[in-house]
Structures are given as C-alpha cells and as structure tokens.
C-alpha cells in the first residue's frame, strides 16, 4: 500500500488541505473568506473583469497575477463577440469547480487519474431575458455535465468521485440552492 501511495500523483497537495481542515475546525473565524472581482464596461455589451485580491485566514491575499476576463455576446445577438457570454462563465465556473474537486478527492482516495474531460451544457429559453413570456425564467432551465474519466479505479469508484465532488462543490451549491444577491449603487 505504501508503495502505491507514493506513486499516486494528481498534483494535489492533499496533506495541506487536510491540515487546513483540521486548523479551520478549531478556528471558525479564519474560515471566513471573501472572493472579489471588478468589472468595467468597455462599450456595447463588452466588459472587462479582473480578479486579483481576496481575503481569508484572517488576512488579505493576492493571486500571483491579475487575471482578466472579457465578456460580451456573440454576433447573433448583434454584439461584437469580444469574449465569452456571462452565462458561459457560469458554466466554466461550475465545471472547473467540479473538475478540481474530482482531482482532489481522487488524490485523497489514492486514485490515479489519467484523463478527465467534461462537457457542460446549459439550456436557456431566450423568451425569458427578452421579456416575451414572464413565465419563462431568465436563467438556465437546466444544466447537464458529462464526464469522461480515465483512472485506475472501478466504474463505481469513479462515479463516487464525481458524486462526492458535487457534494463538496461551492459552485454546484450556488447553482442548486438560492443565494441572496444584493446590488447597490454608490
């Protein structure tokens, strides 16, 4: 078993995460994090968002670099298509959260991953955001994620990885349960 443990490497430092879990169990205040982004309108439906700082563990932190994200709408919406649409960012958020979770849980369960590929589809009825039918919601009426995973594990163990990742995913939680959103103007 020891030999096996040494050879499993999905590139996730599970020991550090287990340490953090233990530390944050006894220090609930340090577990309070805040994630932030800024967004600036560029013209038309094009905006540029940046992500840099966040807080947690009782301190301020910065990403190694500032990450920038152009968002726009495609030409079929008579936009200039400078970037992904905001709803596509939501899909990216979900599937990257689940995929990171799968790698972490696989490392913890000593499962070597060889490849993990997901496709995510969000279905939407435009009659909602265009105000054509007030009974149609603005957002997705459903999201479907499909994983193809190659790993040293049984089919059930792979399914269990994907199920556990959903159970522990922040974005999955935000999309499946309501979140209070407050928007103010200064």
């Amino acid at each position: 078993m020891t030999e096996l443990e040494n050879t499993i490497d999905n590139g996730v430092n599970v020991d550090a995460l287990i340490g953090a879990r233990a530390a944050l169990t006894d220090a609930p205040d340090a577990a309070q994090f805040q994630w932030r982004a800024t967004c600036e309108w560029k013209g038309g439906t094009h905006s540029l968002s940046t992500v840099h700082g966040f807080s947690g563990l009782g301190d301020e932190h910065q990403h190694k670099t500032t990450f920038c994200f152009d968002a726009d709408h495609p030409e079929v919406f008579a936009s200039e298509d400078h970037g992904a649409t905001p709803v596509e960012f939501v899909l990216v958020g979900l599937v990257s959260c689940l995929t990171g979770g799968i790698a972490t849980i696989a490392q913890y369960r000593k499962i070597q991953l060889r490849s993990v590929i997901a496709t995510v589809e969000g279905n939407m009825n435009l009659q909602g955001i265009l105000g054509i039918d007030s009974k149609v919601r603005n957002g997705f009426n459903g999201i479907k994620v499909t994983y193809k995973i190659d790993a040293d594990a049984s089919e059930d163990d792979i399914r269990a990885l994907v199920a556990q990742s959903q159970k522990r995913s922040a974005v999955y939680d935000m999309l499946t349960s309501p979140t209070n959103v407050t928007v103010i103007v200064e």
Partner: protein
Amino acid sequence: MQTTTTIVIGAGHAGLAMSKCLTDCSIEHIVLERGKVAHTWRTERWDSLTLLTPNWQSRLPGYGYQGDDPDGYRSLPETIAFIERYASLIAAPVQTHTNVNSVKKSEHGYLVSTDKGDWQCRSVVLASGACNLPNIPKFADDLPSTVRTLTPATYRNPEQLKKGGVLVVGAAATGIQLAQEIHLSGRPVTLSIGEHTRAPRVYRGRDIQWWLDAVGLHDERYNKVDDIVRARGVPSFQLIGTPDRETIDLNSLRKMGVKHIGPFVGINNGIGQFAGSLHNKCDLADLKMNRLLKAIDAWIAENHLEDDVEPSHRFPPTEVDSSPPLSIDFQTGEINTVLWATGFRPDYSWLHVPVFNHKGQIRHDGGIVDSPGLYLMGMQFLRRRKSALLDGAGDDARELSEHMLSYLAD
C-alpha cells in the same frame, strides 16, 4: 440534600444498561427519570412505530429477547414493555417523575438539582437521550400560517392531519416511513430528500442488521473511523420493520405516487425553495449502498458461506425525474401540512458544566466527557456504530462503568 456515588439521568435502555453495569461494579447509584421508565417511547413516538432492528438484536446486559419471533420487529407497546421488564428484572434504582433542573460542578463531584430535591454525587451519567429537540431550520417560521407543522415527536397517526397534501421533509427511516403511511391514508405526499442512507431490509436472504452485526460493522469503534464527526451525523438507514420484511425506499414510494423533491432550502414570499441537487443525493446513496453490499459479499466469500446464502445481486438504481420541481407554492393550499422529519438533537439546557464546544455539543472521548466523573450514553456512534441501538448500550455501559470504577478509586 441527599448523597449517592453516581446519578444516572434518564431511564431509557441506555440509562438502565448503565445501571445494571454499575450494580455489577457495586457502585451505589440512582437513576432519575422525568416520567416513567421509557418515557420518550411512551410520549414522543408515533402509533405505528416498529423498531428497525430485529427482536434478537436487543442484547442488554443480563437480558435479551426470549420470545418465539427472533426475526420480527417490536411494536411501540412491545418496546415499552421490553424496557419496563428490563428495569424490573435488574431491579434498577429508578426514581420516576423527577425532573432534573440543573447539574453543576461541586467540590467533590456534582450537584444535581431536581424538582424533588437536591443530590450530591461523585459522578453523573447523561443518558437523557439523543432526540430531545427537533432540528427544524430557521426558515420554517416563514411558512404561511395556514400551513400546520408537525415533528415526529408530535405526530401520532394520519388522522391527526387535515385532508390535503403533506410535505414530509427528510428521507431517513422516519421520513420515508411516515411518507408512506400518510400517503396511504389518502393525503398526497411530497417528500423532500436530502442526504440519505439507502439499504435493503433483506440481502442474500438475511436481515441487513444481521449482516451489519456479522460483518462487524456494528462493532466498528469510534476511534477507528475516518471522520467520526461525520459518522455521528449519518442519517439512519431507510428501513421499516414489517412482518413480511418489506424494503421501503424512494423507488417503492415513487411507485405508490409519492412525489420526490430536493432538499428544502428556503422560503420566499410563501414559496418554498428546493435545491436542484436531488440527482446527486440519490447517486451518493445508491453508491454507498452498493459499497455496503460489496463489503457483505466480500465477507461471505472470505468465510466461504456462498452455499449457505442466496446469490449476490444489486438493486435497481433510484429513479429520479429528469427535472424535479424546485419550488412549492404554500399559498395555494394544495399542501397544508409540513412534517419535519429532519432529525433531533439532545437538550442540555440544564447542564451547567463547561463541556460544550462552539457548536453546543458535549466534548467527550467515546462517552468520557471532558469533565472528570461525567459520562455520556446512548448517542449515535458514541463508542461503536451500534451505540444508539438497544443492542449497542451494553458494550458501552460495560466499558464506561469500568472507567468510572477506576476514576472513583483514585
């Protein structure tokens, strides 16, 4: 002021098992009981309740099942009678109708104040039960006043309920049993399903509880599991004890017309909000059940018992609608009752000893509380997976009474 060596609070099966072990250790004690023996069973359980474990699986210290139906499941009156007989058989020193108002540290132990006077003692056993207060989410207050709410402690039978739809929240043993009973009474049930633990009543010809016992899972120790905090919070198996040993699960409920919906997460302007995570809740439970069945299969193979039992098989996966509903409008009157089968927690409002963590739970190591001379009994996975069962109190009581004996000798 009266004095004794040890006071046991609560004369349910856990308190009585401890009393028997204390008697065996010649530790002078008294068992204080707010009502009669088995008070919670008499006053806070529904009429049709049967135990989830078979009759034989109730091995208390110096007592066990003696009837001719070892594989049956006790009814509520039979359970009360069983515990009553145990109390009288072991001649437990129970003082009934005595309510404990407070427990405090004193110079040589503890001061226990009751409505029948005060006691001074060296040690105290908390056996007042794991299920005193219902776990109801705060947003329950936002339900429209036209909706009546109940808990399994106040529910008795479907006739209590108005005609019309019922939302049962929670799909552990209690939730699915009551969903079935209420739905069969002609009140259409919607079942809100969170994390749950699926298990067949019978596998390969034997009761699932027989397998848990034989394979050793019931005896798994609290300090040997990966995450004891999580293990102590796992919902009870979806089981029911009926004469024909039927399996009750989400598929059987769906077949009879019970609607399934995800976890109840909030109420906004009279509209209940339910999480879109039902598929994953069911996947997790199916996968977990199959891991259990695989462990049983492995044990059978290891012990070369294949010829003695039925062949290995798997149960159909839980059927889930492709798009389960995400809301219920409580203002339409279609659903006029909500039954919170969302679990219980103990009430320690009378325990004035600094032993609580930041979540209000008692700090303890397998029932040895973080205050010398104070012990805990009858809680989920206290020392073993079976700790909260009738069958689990004995081993815990034996070990904790031995610990107490050496503590008292110091």
